[in-house]
C-alpha cells in the first residue's frame, strides 16, 4: 500500500492513506517549498495519498 512522490530527479516511496502534508513532513521537505500535483492538477496538502498513485512535487524555490 504505497505511492510515489517525485521532486526534480528524486523519487520517494510513501505509505498511501496519509495526507500530502504528513508525507512531506516525513520526508523533511518544507511544505512551503513545493507545490503538489496529481495528474497535472494542483492539490492542497490535506489531500489523502491514494494507493499506487504518483504525486509530482514542483519545487518553487529559485535562487540567484
Amino acid at each position, binding site marked *: 500500500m504505497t505511492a510515489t512522490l517525485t521532486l526534480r530527479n528524486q523519487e520517494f516511496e510513501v505509505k498511501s492513506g496519509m495526507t500530502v502534508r504528513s508525507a512531506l513532513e516525513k520526508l523533511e521537505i*518544507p511544505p*512551503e517549498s513545493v507545490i503538489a500535483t496529481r495528474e497535472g492538477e*494542483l492539490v*492542497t496538502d490535506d*489531500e489523502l495519498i491514494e494507493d499506487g498513485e504518483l504525486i509530482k512535487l514542483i519545487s518553487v*524555490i529559485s*535562487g*540567484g
Partner: protein
Amino acid sequence: MKCKKCGGKAAINMRQHKLALCKEHYLDWIPAQTQRFIEKYKMFSPEDKILVAVSGGKDSLALWDILIQLGYQADGLYIGLGIDGGFGYSDKSLRFCQRYADRHGLNLIVVDVGKTYGSTIPQLNDKTPRGKEKPCAVCGVSKRNIMNRAARDGNYDVLVTGHNLDDEAAVLFGNTLNWLDRYLLRQGPVLEAERPGLVRKAKPLFRFYERETAAYALLRGIEYIYDECPHAVGAKSIYYKEILNQLETKRPGAKLIFYLNFLKAKDRGLFAEPVIESEALNTCTSCGQPTTSPAKCAFCRLVELPTPD
C-alpha cells in the same frame, strides 16, 4: 479543502491568509491583489510605459502575464547572459520568453551581452582578478546597467522585476544579519529614480509568496524554465529562503510579517538617511549612465578589461 469563494475543490491553500481558492478564483485573485498593491505602493499608473525584465522563470513571466491582463502597456526585456551550464541555460530561457511574447503578440527586447559587448557574462568574469569565482557579482552589475539603459533608451516610465516576497525577505534577512544599513535603507518595493538618468523601479509581486507565483504560472499554463541558472546552486539566498520557510511552517505568516514590518519600521524612521554621505554624481564617459565613479562606470570598466590569454 474547499474554495472560500465558491465551495469547489481548492487548488491552493494560503495559510498566512487563511485562504484556500479554486483555480478559477485564484486566477482572479492574483491580478486583483496585484492591482491593489500597484496602487497602494504607488508603483505606476495605466498611462505609464512599462518595461518588464523577464528571465524565462516563473516570477517574471507571471508578472508580465498579470500586467497584460490588467491592461497595462508592458514590453519585455530579456538579457542574454551567455550562460550554458551544460544544458544551454541562456538559450533555453530566451526560448521561453520568446514563446510567451509570440503567443500573446507582445514586444520582447533582447540584449545579448556577448554580441553587444563582445564578451558573455562568464567571459567578463574571467577577465576580473577574481575570475575563478561565481560570476554573480559581474552578472549583477551588468544586468543593472543594461536594464537601466534599455529602459532609458526606450523611454519607459518604469522598470519592473518579478521579485516575490521570498526573494525580498531573503535579501532582508541577509542585510539584517550583517546590519548593512545602506542596503536596508534602499530596500523596498519601489526604488525612485534618485538621480537623473536612472529609471524608476518597482516590484509588483513583492507581497506574494514564491509558492503563489509558481501556482499562478502553473494554473495559467505559462511555460517557464524550471532549471535554475547553474550558478545559483549553493547561493546564500537559497539558504536564507530555507531558513525562512522553516519559520513559516511553524508560524504561517512569519516571513510576510518579517518583511512588511520592516517596511513599516523604515517608514517610521528606523533607518535614518546618512547626513553627510551624498555621493558625487557623475556621468559615465562611455555609456552616459549615472555613476559614482569619476570617469567610467563599473560596467564599462568591466567590458573594457583585457581578455586573459
